Structures are given as structure tokens and as C-alpha cells.
């Protein structure tokens, strides 16, 4: 590429940039002002996680890539509507990406997918073993720590509770669809999901500071 560029800003502004990591919320504020550098920074913080989330839902690298581009595009366009009182930036991004991914799966056709899934299902009804993640070569000790804690927390849950939560989160199934899929009473699924989520809330409290 033949053109490179530099943006010059006052030292005082630069000092606040380099001293401490800019909080996620500030980045979103800067995105609302049209600063694509802030979007790049947010990608560096969450891109890997959102891509992994998208892959877990859509399974195809090209589709997952599409989901991530769409999700960050939506976050960019709607940055000014982000309301910190309703939750963290991470949860906001995950919600957007998950819903784009589930939309894509639905668009592809639930039926075709059901067959595809049926071939992969293990005895307990869940397609992907989520716990026991491989080593993480990624940058960002904080994110790795989050991954480790979440994997550990999910592994701690009784299997039926974990399955109920994962089917809802990664497959977008409702409680009655899960009951049907697992041939269990609806009330049982409701209890498992609620109890499991309450346990996760306790186990993940180190990551939930200031939001719970």
C-alpha cells in the first residue's frame, strides 16, 4: 500500500490514552462519535470471543465471519444507543453476535439443520462438549482468565443443567423446545435452567463485579 497516515493529537490526550486501558464504555462513546480506531480497539478485545461464539452457533467459518462483521457493524451504527445501565459492553456485544448468529442459522433452514445435528448428537442431547477447552494461544491474559473461569464453571454444573443452558444459548431453543428435544417435562427443564443459571451467577461472580 502506498499511502500511510498519522493522526496527531495533543500530548495530554495521548497521555490519558496510554496510561491506562480505556474502559469499554469510553470506546463505545468514541465509536458513537465516528472514531473507527475505537472500533478496532473493541475488536481487539472481543473479536476472538465473538468469533468463537459465532462458530459455536453457525459452525461454518465463512458464516461465522459474516456474523462477526455484521455484529460489529451493528455495534458501530448503534453505539450511541448503548446504555451502560442495562449491562456491560461485553454482554451487549455477545447479545448482538448471538442473535445475528441465530438469525443466520434460522435463515439457513431449521429443518436442514436438524438433520445435520441429529447426526452429531451424543447421548445427552448436546452436540458440542463445551467443557475441557484446549490450550489458548491467544493474547490478553484477562480474556484467557475469563475463558478458563467460564469453562470451569460450566464443568462444575450438573450435566442436565449445563445441557439445558447450552441448548438455549448456543442453539436458540426455547424451554419447551428443549423439553421436547430431551423428552423431559417442561417443568423439569425450567427448574434445571434456573438452578443452573443461579449457580453460574455465583461461580462467575469474580467476572461480574459491578454489574451483578
Amino acid at each position: 500500500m502506498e499511502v500511510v497516515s498519522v493522526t496527531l493529537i495533543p500530548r495530554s490526550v495521548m497521555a490519558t490514552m496510554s496510561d491506562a486501558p480505556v474502559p469499554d464504555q469510553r470506546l463505545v462513546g468514541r465509536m458513537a462519535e465516528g472514531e473507527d480506531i475505537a472500533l478496532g480497539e473493541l475488536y481487539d478485545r472481543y473479536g476472538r470471543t465473538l468469533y468463537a461464539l459465532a462458530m459455536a452457533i453457525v459452525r461454518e467459518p465463512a458464516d461465522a465471519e459474516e456474523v462477526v462483521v455484521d455484529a460489529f457493524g451493528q455495534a458501530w451504527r448503534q453505539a450511541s444507543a448503548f446504555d451502560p445501565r442495562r449491562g456491560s459492553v461485553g454482554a451487549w456485544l455477545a447479545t448482538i453476535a448471538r442473535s445475528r448468529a441465530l438469525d443466520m442459522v434460522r435463515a439457513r433452514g431449521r429443518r436442514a439443520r436438524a438433520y445435520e445435528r441429529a447426526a452429531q448428537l451424543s447421548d445427552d442431547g448436546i452436540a458440542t462438549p463445551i467443557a475441557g477447552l484446549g490450550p489458548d494461544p491467544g493474547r490478553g491474559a484477562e480474556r484467557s482468565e475469563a475463558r478458563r473461569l467460564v469453562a470451569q464453571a460450566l464443568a462444575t454444573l450438573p450435566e442436565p443443567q449445563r445441557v439445558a443452558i447450552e441448548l438455549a444459548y448456543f442453539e436458540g431453543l426455547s424451554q419447551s423446545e428443549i423439553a421436547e428435544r430431551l423428552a423431559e417435562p417442561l417443568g423439569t427443564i425450567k427448574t434445571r435452567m434456573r438452578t443452573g443459571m443461579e449457580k453460574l451467577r455465583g461461580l462467575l461472580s469474580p467476572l461480574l463485579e459491578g454489574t451483578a
Partner: protein
Amino acid sequence: MTTAHEWQDFAAPYALGALAPEERSAFEAHLAGCEACRAEVRAFTEVAGLLAYGAPAVEPPAGLRDRVLAEARRVRPIAAPRRPATGAWLAAAAALVLAIGAAITAWRMAGRVRILERQVAADDSSKAATDSALAMLTGAQVNVVTLAGTGRPPSARVFWNRARGRFVVFAFDLPQAPAGRGYQLWAIAKGQAPMSMGTFNTDAAGRATVVLPVGRDIAALGFVDNCALTEEPAGGSPQPTETPRLLGAWLHTD
């Protein structure tokens, strides 16, 4: 009748998006008037958000970051309702168009447009140089335009067109230097003394659009780390005489 306690049981499945449609609508109606349940939903939404970290780790493709940014450069964020941003932005865009137009006329250098077009192409590889000047600005130059807002700290953006050996400088909200003085740009390579990139001054509105030839010493170096701006006597100094007013790190895209 659903009691308050029972409503709270809806928060976790709601955060997972697992309620039946009719349950969801009923719960949302309840949420509107119940702060306790809203707090529960907030907490469980955070828990659900963390489940994203439970997805098996996979390395995203190398070009994904660029795609995300290229997509963002095609559209600008929706303005917050409290700011009359569209009008201000259009005014800024119009001002920039005028500045570019004036620059072209003044220097009678049709090549300038090509420099800008290359910048657009570089910034926005997918939707390079679209039809009109305004469309160009909405695409790749959003950053420049946004930086031009009033009441902001001074800033400048410098493009180095290597093929043509030119620096193209846009300065914003940088108060005009007094008579007999001007601004000087410095290229700084790590471990070396700053090299002058040239001098300019801003107009009464604090703006400047300038093209500076790339000096032989800088061109020979081929790679600089930082860029700084100082106020100096008109005509420039051999070395900076004050601490930089503006600083930036070159973004190497190649």
C-alpha cells in the same frame, strides 16, 4: 395470578432468550414496572454474555479485523438524539469539500484529487473511490470530518503518499500561529533526531490543508515511527524548540 416471586423466576430464561413468546411479552410488561426484576435480568444477561467465553476457542481468520473496519467505514454511526450531529457533520463535510476545492484551485494541481482518491482506496479497499466527493467523504474520511467538530482539542491528520513523495496535511481546531511564527511537522524515527517535514500555518478558523514534499532524508529512511508538531519561527527551525503540541504514531498499513 403470578406473584412477584414467581416473576423473578423468568429472569434467567428471559436472559437466555428461552421463554415462549407469550411468556416473554407478559414478562416484559411486568419488567416495565418492576425494578427488582430488571436488576435480575441485568445480572442474568451478564451471566449469559459470559457464556460466549464457553464457546470452544477458535482462531479468527487474519483478515477479519480489516473486514470489520472496512464495513464500518462504509457507514457512519447513527447520531445520538441529543446531538444535532447530522447538520454539524454535513456542515463539516461541506467545509472540507470547500477546503479541498480551494486547495485544488489554488495550487492548480489536479493530481491532488488522485492523492485523495488513493487515500480513499487505501482506507476503504472494498468500496474504493465512489462517485461524488461527498460519497468519498462519507466512506473513508469520516474520521477526518469527525475530528473537525468545534470545541474539540486541536488535531491533524497527515497522509504520506509514498508513490508521489508528498505529505498531505489536514489540521483542525489548531489556532493560527501569530505573525512571524508557524507550525512545523517533524518525522521521528526511533533513536534519531527529529527531521523536519515542512512548515505551514492554519487560517483564522484554525484549519489548514497543505501538501508538503517529502524531504530526501525522510524518503531515504523510508520508515518513521512518530510524527510531532511544534510552533516555530516562520520558515522553521533546524530542530524543535518546544515540546510537541501534537503527537501521533504512524499507522503502517503495508
